[in-house]
């Protein structure tokens, strides 16, 4: 099968809308298809990676654990936008996963190099 570079761009907060969760579902399928998968987190999307999701009060399933499964699917290219972190008072210490941090401009270049960019 042809292997293409798929980048999943996550720009929305983890809860409040279903985009983050349904994005993760496609990521896992793309990985199962043995594609070259990366995930980029920017804007409120950086909150998806924050440690310690507690969703009991809103009665929505927390999917933080699913992020932990990404490595089992060989999804290890997790890119985070530095400016988005800074704007929200976050550092990589707040995040649940090891990530690579890029400036917005660098992230733009990475996007340009992709075959397929899916933005959720």
């Amino acid at each position, binding site marked *: *099968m*042809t292997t*293409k570079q*798929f980048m999943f761009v996550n720009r*929305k907060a983890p809860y409040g809308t*279903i*985009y983050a969760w*349904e994005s993760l*579902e*496609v990521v896992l*399928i*793309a990985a*199962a*298809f043995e*594609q070259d998968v990366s995930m980029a987190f920017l804007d409120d999307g950086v909150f998806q990676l924050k440690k310690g999701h507690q969703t009991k009060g809103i009665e929505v399933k927390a999917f933080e654990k699913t992020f932990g499964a990404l490595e089992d699917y060989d999804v290890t290219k997790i890119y985070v936008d530095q400016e988005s972190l800074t704007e929200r008072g976050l550092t990589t210490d707040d995040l649940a996963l090891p990530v690579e941090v890029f400036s917005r401009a660098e992230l733009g270049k990475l996007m340009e190099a992709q*075959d*397929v*960019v*899916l*933005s*959720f």
Partner: protein
Amino acid sequence: MKFSILVNEGPYTHQASDTAYQFTKAVLAKGHEVFRVFFYHDGVNNATRLTTPPQDDRNIVNRWSKLAEEHNLDMVVCVAAAQRRGIVDEGEMKRNGKDATNLAAGFRISGLGQLVEAGIQSDRLVVFGD
């Protein structure tokens, strides 16, 4: 060029489905190939044949069905997203013990693998949504 289209928003609330439809039509008019139109997130709501918009408004669902018929389009609705939102065909009705179906003509329900395949097979995968 070979295109695939991803529609991530439902009809009427959001313009994404309208724009995706117009884009798909334009792509076909220019003589390009459309490998697949995939409906995800609330985009699956474009596939219910039970919508009844006012008569002086566009019928987004019927418009998709007609385009599919004219151009033999492969229009695929994500099964997981459809199950969450109550988009049901004969097979899903039986499998999940429901009492009705509502999938419009020209659509079929299948897995997310179809979206990934569209990304692999197409020169361009164009995403419509927020």
